[in-house]
């Protein structure tokens, strides 16, 4: 395992990454080497003093288009783009897609006519960023689409793990909670399995999507079993807004069986770390004290890594577009 701690290839962390596509729509389908390079470049950014000049994207226009509420993702993207010297405009279009008159594509092409270089899209419908990419000429980043994917979250989670543990390959990682409704879970499953981690999913059967094991993971309904010897326990938010009231009897019952507390965590590896993409429901997915345990919880590091990861992605998309 030790050799995995070292990078067995030459990395030039000081130059932008080139990707196969000039969009980041999903982790599924990305190559291992692309992910590696993005993480390495992000690691480089994360190590920089925040006053270091990284502004090499002046004149680059980024539209942050959010059809769904978000604080951390939107701010994180904005900071990342600004640190690269790009112009950022935030547009909140919550509920506007269901307003009569303007279709999503009309909205998109209106925005496109303003000639942005990059559109960062969050949308409640799975696949919406793919539709944007089909019709628009600028680069698209999927900042979360329905229950489909949230690729930048998976990349920042991976960077967080790498910086703490050193490597991904062979790690036992348990993703726990509302898998069915989670785009974070899907992106993490694709990324972590691509990188060679052993991924397990833990959820009540009502929140476990059909045929999930076909994505290369092991599925558990018993949390203690599912996190046994795990190196990383990743929790997901219970997405009540995407449920019909038939998934889960009550929050206290959920916490009893699927909330992370000391007893359940004792099943995991003694050095196991805890992650959560936020926002978290304390006392539902995780005991409050565990969330604040700085020795074990990486929740704040995740947020911090978000900016570095998004810098590496924005820069890479610009680089990939220019060079193709």
């Amino acid at each position, binding site marked *: 395992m030790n050799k995995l701690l070292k990078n067995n290839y030459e990395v030039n962390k000081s130059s932008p990454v080139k990707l196969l596509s000039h969009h980041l729509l999903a982790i599924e389908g990305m190559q291992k080497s692309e992910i590696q390079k993005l993480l390495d470049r992000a690691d480089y950014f994360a190590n920089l003093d925040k006053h270091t000049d990284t502004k090499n994207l002046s004149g680059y226009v980024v539209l942050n288009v959010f059809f769904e509420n978000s604080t951390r993702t939107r701010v994180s993207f904005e900071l990342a783009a600004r640190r690269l010297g790009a112009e950022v405009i935030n547009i909140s279009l919550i509920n506007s897609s269901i307003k009569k008159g303007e279709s*999503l594509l009309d909205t998109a092409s209106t925005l496109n006519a303003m000639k942005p270089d990059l559109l960062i899209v969050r*949308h409640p419908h799975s*696949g919406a960023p793919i539709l944007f990419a089909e019709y628009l000429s600028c680069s698209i980043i999927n900042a979360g689409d*329905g229950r489909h994917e949230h690729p930048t979250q998976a990349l920042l989670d991976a960077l967080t793990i790498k910086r703490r543990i050193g490597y991904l390959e062979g790690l036992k990682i348990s993703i726990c909670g509302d898998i069915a409704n989670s785009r974070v879970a899907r992106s993490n499953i694709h990324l972590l399995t691509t990188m060679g981690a052993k991924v397990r999913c833990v959820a009540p059967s009502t929140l476990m*999507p059909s045929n999930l094991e076909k994505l290369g993971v092991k599925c558990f309904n018993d949390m203690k079993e599912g996190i046994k010897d795990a190196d990383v326990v990743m929790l997901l938010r219970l997405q009540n807004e995407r449920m019909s009231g038939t998934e889960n009897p009550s929050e206290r019952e959920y916490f009893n069986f699927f909330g992370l507390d000391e007893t359940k965590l004792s099943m995991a590896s003694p050095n196991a770390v805890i992650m959560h993409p936020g926002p978290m429901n304390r006392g539902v997915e995780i005991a409050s004290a565990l969330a604040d345990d700085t020795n074990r919880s990486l929740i704040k590091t995740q947020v911090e890594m978000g900016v570095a990861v998004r810098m590496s992605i924005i820069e890479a998309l610009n680089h990939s577009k220019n060079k193709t």
Partner: protein
Amino acid sequence: MTHTIFKSIKLINPATNFNQKVNVVIHNETITNISKDLHLEKFNKNNQTIIYDCEGLTMSPGIFDMRVNIGKTENLKFTQITAAESGITSMAILPNQTPKLNNPSIIDHIKRQSEDINLPKVIVYGAATKDLNGLEISEIGLMSEMGAIGFTNGNKSIKNSLVMRRLMSYATMINRPIIQHAEDEDLSGLNQASTTSIRGEMNEGEISTRLGLIGIPACAEVIMIERDIRLAKLTGAHYHVAHVSTRDAVNVIREAKRSGLYITCDTAPPYFSLNESKLLTYNTAFKLSPPLRSEDDRLAIIEGIQDGTIDAIASDHRARSKDTKAQPFSAASVGASGIETLFSLTLDLVHKKIIDINKAISFLTINPAKILGINSPSLEEEKLADFIVFNENEPNTIKQENLKTGPTPFDGKKIYGKILATYINGQAAFMNQIFKNKIIK
């Protein structure tokens, strides 16, 4: 008085199990002569005889499409004209249009409005429940007297068991079938208000999981059929299941037919041609109801077609505008065009050696007519000249840009077979240039 002669044409007539090369003569709206030897001198006395050289071509009864939605993108006449160009001589339309076909006067109105000697005949289903709300049964007796041929809630299922029982029971008095879109709408999440995000969008399975779309389990179909079969047994009704899409449904229907119940069903080309993997790019042309199912389900539909469990093939035409389809998958409209591709996709089963051509034609003609209690079309002497002329083997590619309705889920598919002419009441409702050139002076 013009006679039209179709010389050396292969005549396929499922009603009499006929498949031979003959000469067919029509006069006014009637077939006057079918024979192997053509005595031209009988006709040559006057100049009004038209002869088409039909060597290599095939004639069969015109298609009876038993499931057509007239959507917002079309009006009835447009659909009739498109249907004629597609080889359809009769079509049954669903009651879920605007206004709803839920009372005798509108049934009468549609019938009159659509009457045109040279366009496909329009047959009307009445709304099984008032306002298609599934709660109160509508005036199915009066609608039946006005010509409604069967009763259905269209693209919504008749959900309430008591309502279904009463409907079936009542329908036995007027000898009409109850047609069901079989789907447990609670299970598929479709009973949720449109703003909630748990409405079923595609077949449930690995692909729905990958795409993050809400799955509709395959059993949502068979659950409804199993209930209905019990009610059909209780009431003695003729129960017809529309667009069957799953293996379990085919199995249950097969069993019920064996037990002697009066149960029939149809399917549509997407369900024997495509499977759910088509959705992997979120292409909304494949957003259908019922959804495209697994490959195993598709194979079961083919088995059902082969062994006769499935009685008919309908287009399930539900054309949609580009605007309502150019949306994220969850927000896009449900349905696809069908009438223009029904013939060639059914013929595809023949080219793939799944069924023979006589059987394929039966699925499109006499079988649906029999289900709906309409006189079976038959190409015999002294019978009505409603037929199509086609080339069985002409290679072709379905292209959206060549179609008048959309979206087609078959864009780019290579097929064989082309409709050259459609005759309704002895007159050409459609004839393409290739056929016009077949005329012998």
